[in-house]
């Protein structure tokens, strides 16, 4: 048995899977904000009871938490002292001098404040040049002075980020040694260890993020481990990372920056898992919650990763699952602007006051209100009936704030709200898929979260996508991703050489050294050699470019030759052509970063496919309901209970499929089919 536990803002989701049979159990329990461990323990107890198993049968737990992201958003991380090269103390705050991206005309826009204020940033005398050579030796007195200042200011963590440390980490390591003497017990993060890449601001910010979150994460892990041990004895606890892999709780304490956004990363892993099961190599994961819409791209069954991610406009230069978040969710508010045009979001009713239909005092129309007005949502079955909805409040909100000002009927207004929010989500997906020159016609749209399945077919049609897949357990989807994720660590080294300067032996040595480091790490985490997978890649570019493309490199235990180097370069030209519609095959390629990813593979789940010939469902619906469609007006359509639909069922649209945590819509002219893994698959045949 493996158990995945995802602590979200509202609920703690728990999933248990039987490795032998592939059978899943799942449950939800309210998140306990005063002490997150309490909800974790409660959920764990519940799932063991539901499955009728004891902790001895559980091989390990995988845990994901938003505690890191929350600490950043709320400014509640540790008090950090930052050591920089003297004269560069302000790099963290200067950032890249640019205004926030979407604010080119907005005089009022601000970047978020630096996580270390100026008086806690201290310069030390030293300098390494662009060749990695020491130009000014480290003046240790200046390091001790910084340590004394930090001691006075009672910093809880120290971060060291010196210029060109990615080429030569000697000075940073020496600073760490001195801090170990002067401030014993205070954790030290080195930029050359966590993020050995060029661009001082991004590297410093990433290292600061690690220092800022380290003590918060460590305290939490210690508390949780102690609670688990008190209850169950020794438990193997893994933590989800933003790169889509896991690591042990012990390792997580010193890798706090790797935990940010790990929940949504779980969703992307689950999307990849489902896309793999269903034979869709290319997929888009769509998670529509109350306030946001998270998009992930699955390429050849792997979630696309980026090293240009971040959180609330702080860059984090670590490989992470590439998630794009846009402000569109069930709570997004519809409003008519001064020009008489309808807009949806980014303002959200959130859970306070919530959409008008919740009856919690909200009066402005949200996307959920539009869905309710049009009959797409069931007022008596939201969250399985736990939250009654008020159609009259939704209607009033839509009428007052959209229909009347625009001179539309309430239905037209509500349908307009859905079209706008769908277009916005479609724009987000197309923007995120442009990067690799993807053709969305090959892609499946995999939904998760409560609201996505209601909108998915419309979005997929807007983008000409192949099909929509609504997996079971889409309400616990991140936790599903946790239990199928592998242990994973990423390593990077900056090489910064042109093709003709590459020594194949050196190339091999760099890869091997990183590989050895990774394998040692996996051994520490008790991963067996036969479960290990190692992937090499390189960030390549044309001479003069600043932005690299990551190209896979065949692992060559026997050694590289010049021919192999040339072959890698040829692969880059092809990739550049695919992505940008342009390449320069005669030009020299620059090898910027070398990357190694090591994985401790989870044994595949023995997932059982139930097979049944497809059959047309006749009758069997739990109700008929009037639902409004923009092109057709009000239609009386069948509403099915998801659990009643067995494998092989084909349900012609228009129809609705309800379950406690989500609602799916099969539009007119399409058919929903329950596949061998109980996914609802809506083929969008007949598309343009």
């Amino acid at each position, binding site marked *: 048995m493996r158990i995945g536990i995802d602590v979200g803002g509202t609920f703690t989701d728990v999933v248990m899977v039987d490795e032998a049979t592939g059978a899943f159990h799942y449950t939800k329990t309210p998140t306990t904000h005063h002490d997150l461990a309490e909800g974790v323990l409660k959920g764990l107890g519940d799932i063991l009871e539901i499955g009728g198993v004891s902790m001895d049968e559980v091989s390990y737990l995988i845990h994901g938490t938003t505690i890191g992201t929350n600490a950043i958003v709320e400014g509640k991380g540790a008090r950090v002292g930052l050591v920089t090269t003297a004269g560069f103390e302000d790099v963290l705050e200067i950032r890249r001098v640019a205004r926030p*991206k979407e604010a080119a*005309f907005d005089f009022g826009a601000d970047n978020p404040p630096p996580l270390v204020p100026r008086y806690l940033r201290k310069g030390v005398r030293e300098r390494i*040049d662009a060749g990695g050579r020491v130009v000014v030796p480290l003046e240790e007195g200046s390091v001790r002075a910084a340590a004394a200042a930090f001691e006075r200011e009672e910093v809880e963590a120290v971060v060291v980020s010196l210029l060109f440390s990615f080429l030569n980490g000697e000075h940073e390591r020496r600073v760490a040694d001195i801090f170990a003497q002067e401030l014993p017990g205070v954790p030290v993060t080195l930029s050359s260890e966590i993020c050995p890449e060029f661009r001082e601001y991004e590297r410093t910010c990433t290292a600061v993020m690690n220092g800022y979150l380290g003590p918060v994460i460590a305290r939490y892990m210690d508390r949780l481990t102690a609670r688990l041990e008190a209850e169950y004895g020794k438990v193997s606890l893994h933590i989800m990372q933003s790169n889509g892999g896991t690591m042990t709780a012990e390792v997580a304490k010193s890798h706090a920056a790797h935990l940010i956004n790990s929940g949504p990363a779980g969703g992307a892993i689950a999307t990849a898992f489902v896309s793999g099961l269903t034979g869709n190599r290319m997929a888009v994961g769509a998670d529509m919650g109350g306030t946001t819409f998270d998009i992930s791209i699955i390429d050849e069954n792997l979630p696309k990763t980026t090293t240009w991610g971040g959180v609330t406009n702080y860059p984090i230069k670590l490989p992470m699952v590439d998630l794009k978040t846009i402000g569109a969710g069930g709570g997004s508010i519809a409003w008519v602007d*001064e020009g008489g*045009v309808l807009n949806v979001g980014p303002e959200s009713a959130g859970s306070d006051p919530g959409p008008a239909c919740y009856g919690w005092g909200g009066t402005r129309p949200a996307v959920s209100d539009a869905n309710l007005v049009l009959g797409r949502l069931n007022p008596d079955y939201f969250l399985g009936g736990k939250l009654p909805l008020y159609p009259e409040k939704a209607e009033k909100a839509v009428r007052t704030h959209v229909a009347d000002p625009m001179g539309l009927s309430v239905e037209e207004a509500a349908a307009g709200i859905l079209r706008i929010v769908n277009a916005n989500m479609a724009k987000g997906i197309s923007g995120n898929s*442009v990067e690799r020159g993807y053709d969305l016609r090959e892609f499946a749209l995999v939904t998760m979260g409560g609201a996505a399945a209601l909108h998915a077919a419309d979005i997929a049609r807007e983008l000409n996508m192949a099909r929509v897949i609504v997996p079971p357990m889409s309400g616990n989807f991140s936790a599903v991703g946790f239990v199928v994720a592998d242990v994973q660590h990423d390593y990077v080294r900056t090489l910064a050489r042109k093709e003709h300067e590459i020594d194949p032996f050196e190339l091999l040595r760099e890869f091997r050294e990183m590989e050895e480091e990774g394998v040692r790490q996996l051994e520490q985490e008790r991963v067996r050699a036969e479960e290990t997978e190692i992937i090499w890649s390189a960030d390549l570019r044309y001479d003069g470019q600043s932005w690299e493309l990551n190209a896979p490199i065949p692992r060559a235990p026997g050694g590289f030759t010049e021919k192999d180097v040339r072959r890698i370069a040829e692969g880059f030209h092809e990739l550049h052509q695919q992505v940008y*519609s342009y390449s320069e095959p005669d030009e020299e390629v620059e090898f910027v970063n070398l990357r190694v990813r090591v994985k401790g593979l989870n044994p595949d789940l023995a997932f059982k496919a139930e097979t049944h010939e497809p059959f047309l469902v006749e009758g069997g619906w739990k109700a008929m309901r009037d639902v409004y469609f923009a092109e057709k007006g009000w239609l009386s359509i069948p509403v099915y209970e998801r659990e009643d639909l067995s494998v092989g069922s084909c349900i012609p649209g228009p129809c609705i499929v309800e379950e406690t945590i989500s609602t799916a819509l099969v539009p007119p002219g399409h058919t929903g089919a329950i596949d061998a893994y109980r996914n609802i698959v809506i083929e969008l045949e007949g598309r343009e």
Partner: protein
Amino acid sequence: MRYEADPVTMQVIRYGLEAVADDMGYNLMRMGRTTIVKEIMDINCAVLDAGGGILAQAHLCPLMMFSLPTTAEKMLERVPDFEEGDVVICNDPYLGGQHLLDVQFFSPVFVEGDLVAFVANIAHQLDMGGAVPGGVAGGLTEIYQEGLRIPFVKLYRGGREDAQIFDLISRNIRIPEKTMEDFRAQAATTVVGVRRVQALVRKYGLDVFRDCTRMLLDYSEKRVRRFLREIPDGVHTGRDRLDDDGRTDDPVDIQVNVRIRGDEMEVDFDGSSAQTAGNVNSPWACTQGGVFYTMVGIIDPDMPLNSGSFRPIRVSSREGLVTNPRPPAGVTARSQTMTKIVEAMLKAMSEVVPDRVVAGSHGQACTNSFSGVDPETGKRFSYIEIQGGGAGARPTKDGPDGQDLHLGRFMNTPVEAAELENPVMIERYEFIQDSGGAGKFRGGLSLRRDIRFLADVTWARYSDRQKFRPQGLFGGLEGSVGSLILNPGTPGEARCRSKGVGEIKAGDLLSIRLPGSGGYGRPSDRDPERVAWDVRNGKVSARSAREDYRVVVRGDGTVDREATAALRDR
């Protein structure tokens, strides 16, 4: 599925067009070979209608956007016919461009034989020839010195590169291997844009597309008219001045005269200096850009930006003023003037909407280019730095410390990126204490960057505000001036003019110090705790706290309340 031209479809098409523009920008930045494109992002992309009006633009460098429609209009007059796969380029400031370094690319979008739109992009190129490497030289007097002037030329015909034109350009510029690759990247960007717009038009049908884009422009116009109707009618004047034109020591005056009447607005520049011998002249698209940029920020920074937005605002300037020069006046350093137009506009509008403007910012574009031969590789290099300075204080909060300029959303060059590619060593990069004007809300601090050269270089530059300070508003104090100092603190120390061309010897150090920015509201109204926080962080000196803010900060960083009250009561 059939679509109707209604306000909802209009909104959906708008999102689609914005996505195309943003995606083109993203591609261009990723492909770029030169610092100015790939790190600084001095680029923009747009989708234009068949008449050359802007439908949507990317979220990139705002000032460049205003050239695209002006140039497109001229292109339609001069280029008789287009075919699929054509790419037309132009960099002429007298045909709607910025300066010669900013090269514009246009590609027609055909759907079933109809010309339905254009996609366009503009990027600052590393070198376009002319008297000075890197091009960004102040003090030149004729456009002929400033580089190769390209009127409308088809660089690609039917998708095929014109090798002769490539050759012609290559032979007139320095470091063509980089610039020509950036040209190809700009062209490839239009290819992607064309495909995307075609898909959008096919999806909705040409009639619906045209109706909706027309509605979109009308809608933007309506929003601007509504704003203008709501503010009082009146006449307002704003002024600012440049230190000099790079040739003489005479200041250059900028005056904007704003007349608001009903739902329309007129802006002219009577009272501004005549066009100058030095190249701070602002070509017509640049001048309009300064006005429109300010008004978008004031009216609603999130409104859809298209040609409709600008219909109710009539901008005019007599020919022969620095705001509308006659050829062959030099224009390369025009950003010094454009930013002053923004400052003057903000000053004028502060009388109308005091809660929507900001105090004076560094108000210039500190642009430095260094060219030479790298002693290690023996190769020619050319590298550009644009730095951020103080951004003006706002009605409810401080100005951002160290920010790009009005009109130019750009990034700095990372220290490590600069040193990896060029024979320089940067010794200092930091905020300058007390450079932000005191006020209830403080002006943003400016930046200092000290660069040591490891090779002899030719240094071309333009910047401003070594004499006239950024303005404070409503009792806020002025910000600091900027300076360029060679070898500060040594016997060879030399203060350099803001504009010009010079030589720097290997081993010399150049200290680039940007101007600060003005405060908003009276300094004595500032919360003493905020003053103490600034003192603790070294952003404000204890002396300025006492003298400007009348706040006494103790040695331990806390506010001496009694002493402060006594000072403030005086």
